[in-house]
């Protein structure tokens, strides 16, 4: 009986292991392939011969990506944007989520604000009105154009609000009885208890700010103000038929000198690294903030 169970268990364990290994490989292999392509010779990559190891290794694609001082200017702008935008999101998300987590008895206009917020999530004014709004505020070509329009991350607010709502009500009532005001309750009670959720939304907003390229393209008027992803995006030796028609043969020749595949892979790797570096630091917050046992029911 026991023996059979062991065998069964082992079979189950083994199958779980196999499934997990397959899932892991499914995540890892595309990444490894991209790394391999980014270091490969362009002819080999274009012929689709590169699998998981680079063929005729070269750094040509990386030197093209990194070769301009603009790369570092843009890198700095991106860092600034992530820090500034991340901070702004952090403060606003927590404050909004806390207020909205109260019910309408405590916060009479709550539902109005809530609908206002949800509305922006469902409907968008479109690029042109957005552009014109930013323009009329005189933000064009400045760092604030990248940060202020995204100050409220609706999705993050809702996420955090729901997390706050799931915290035991008794905790805040107890705090209130002990004389804590709303600010105190929020900062000393809700925030520490919600570290995993806050870490998640912070990661979201960091990744969002790091990855967005489109607003940089539209709202910045000079290349010196492009954030990194925008700069990298424009580096393409694009071979789309559209780009082609607008090119003279000489430009074409230039564009073709760098293979799309190896170059694209190098860009992906370069822009991925900072997020990879940040992630482990945030990860340790994910296990904190357990409310278990704080309230007896």
């Amino acid at each position, binding site marked *: 009986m026991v023996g059979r169970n062991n065998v069964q268990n082992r079979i189950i364990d083994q199958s779980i292991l196999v499934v997990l290994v397959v899932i892991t490989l499914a995540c890892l292999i595309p990444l490894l392939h991209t790394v391999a392509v980014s270091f490969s010779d362009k*002819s080999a990559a274009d012929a689709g011969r590169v699998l998981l190891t680079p063929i005729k290794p070269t750094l040509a694609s990386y030197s093209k990506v990194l070769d301009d001082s603009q790369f570092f200017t843009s890198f700095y702008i991106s860092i600034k944007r992530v820090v500034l935008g991340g901070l702004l999101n952090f403060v606003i998300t927590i404050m909004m989520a806390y207020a909205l987590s109260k019910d309408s008895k405590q916060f009479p206009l709550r539902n109005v604000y809530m609908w206002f917020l949800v509305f922006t999530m469902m409907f968008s004014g479109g690029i042109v009105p957005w552009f014109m709004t930013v*323009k009329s505020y005189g933000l064009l070509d400045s760092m604030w154009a990248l940060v202020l329009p995204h100050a409220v991350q609706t999705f993050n607010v809702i996420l955090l609000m729901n997390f706050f709502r799931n915290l035991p009500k008794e905790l805040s009532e107890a705090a209130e009885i002990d004389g804590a005001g709303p600010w105190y309750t929020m900062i000393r009670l809700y925030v520490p208890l919600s570290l995993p959720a806050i870490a998640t939304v912070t990661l979201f907003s960091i990744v969002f700010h790091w990855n967005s390229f489109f607003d940089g393209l539209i709202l910045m008027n000079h290349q010196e103000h492009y954030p990194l992803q925008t700069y990298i995006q424009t580096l393409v030796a694009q071979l789309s038929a559209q780009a082609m*028609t607008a090119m003279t*043969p000489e430009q074409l020749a230039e564009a073709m000198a760098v293979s799309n595949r190896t170059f694209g892979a190098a860009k992906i790797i370069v822009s991925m690294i900072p997020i990879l570096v940040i992630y482990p630091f945030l990860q340790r917050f994910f296990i904190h903030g357990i409310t278990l046992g704080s309230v007896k029911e």
Partner: protein
Amino acid sequence: MANYRTSKWMAASIALAVLLSACGSGGGSDAGDGGKSSTSSDAGDKGTTTTPSDAKGDALAYEKYSEPVSISVGFKIPDDKLGAGDTNDNNPVSRYLEGLLNIKVTHAWEAKGDDAFKQKVNLAIASNDLPDAMVVDRNQLRKLIDNDMVEDLTDVYAKYGSELVRAMYDSTKGLALADATVDGRIYGMPNVAIEADAPSLLWIRQDWLDKLNLQAPKTVDELAAIAKAFIEQDPDGNGKKDTLGLTGDKQVVYGQKPNPNGFDSIFSSYHAFPKNWIKDKDGNVVYGSITPENKDALAKLAEMYKAGLIDPQFALYKETQEPIVANKTGMFFGPWWMPYWPLADAVANDTKAEWKAYATPLDKDGKFVTHMAPVTDRYLVVRKGYKNPEAAVKLLNAFTRIERRSDPNKDEMKKLDDYATANTVQNRNYYPFDLLLDYSDAVVKRYKDVQAALKGELDPATFDPDTKQVYDYSVIEKENPKKNMDAWKPAKAYELGGGVLATTDMEKIYSLFYGTTKTMETKWTSLQKLENETFLKIIVGDLPVDAFDTFVSDWKKLGGDQITKEVSDLVAG
């Protein structure tokens, strides 16, 4: 998170599309009768100017303003890296132009890359905040004209256009200016594009042909026979049956300027011109993809696909050049510049490869037929209300003169050339407007010059820098074949591609219409999708050839008839 973002952007772009289509009111007529105004040399003298002057002709075209004039432009950032201390709006080119004309060019905004630039122009139009002058595309020009946002340049051009600029426009027989003309008034200065980019040639492995003792094909049937031989007779000699016949692209045809692997030339050998607007035998305007000739071409392609003569996976490649670069195929269609890409990579992977280009297949009368591309696709426009519209034309005069090597200020030109060489930049990328005027036969002319110089009939010292460069590379390539791929690319592109274009007597079919009509804005995308899917499915055998007839009636019903009518009206003027 990602999904939410995507959907938000999608919603945004849909909103933009709706908004933009709402802006474009009324079908403009790009294809007006501008031939008249381009040739009439003096269409009136009421052009505004801040510097009254008695100068005429070229003296006026290049005349320096007495007071500084400033003009803000939208600038396309090039990939080049300038020397230390120079910027996109302050560099030797901009300083020379400012010194020459006393026009201070400022950049209202800059954008890098074609897509970004287009986006920026669209936003400038939508928010009614145009720079004083900028370069726009065909649809943007029409929007600007319809909404009365740009200056009429007819008089300014008549008065200030230089001899050189006039000559370049005249080389298109008035086609270029006609493109920017509505009701006899010119609203934009068009570029002049190179004609050579349009025909799609057959590129074939000459070493494989020789090995199998085959002749270059002349007809589609001969081409099919060679594809069969390439598949079955192991031309690469590796003992494995791993070679493909003709390769293709999931787009099937490109229509105007082809990329590698389009079947354009097969269609045109049947006198079918998909994606172009042509006249049928009764003189009516008709969309080229729905003529009965397409059915013959599709039937042939389906037959070849069924026999395995077309790469069975052609519709599946993410990037169309893969089988070419991997040297799995010995034949494909592509324009003259194929040696630049992808052939340079193919040869790097297999140095034995000897590619040759042929203008083939021929039609039943033994003639090579090809569609052409528009002579112009970009226009320099001036914002309505800008007080010195002639400044834009003067800049165009000045940089066209530099580009064509006919600027009389030899010392200054030498300095510019030296700067370009020292910093490996292209000076032309720093002209205020990305609007090159080229003689439309530039490639063929360059091929002839280089060949003559190689034979010693011409002195290469007299060449313009581009031709000289092609000559130099051709010499390097001749001395050391395939050693320096940077030399191989231009040498072979001109020798093979340019050579075929220069020596082939082609029947050139110009599309009657290149723009967008009102109904097109809402319906064209789905019609194009229907067309592409039908063509693709017929070729790979998912649909019988007769499905083409259903496609034609569907196409007409789903808005095609309306669009055809709009196009006919516009063509008729």
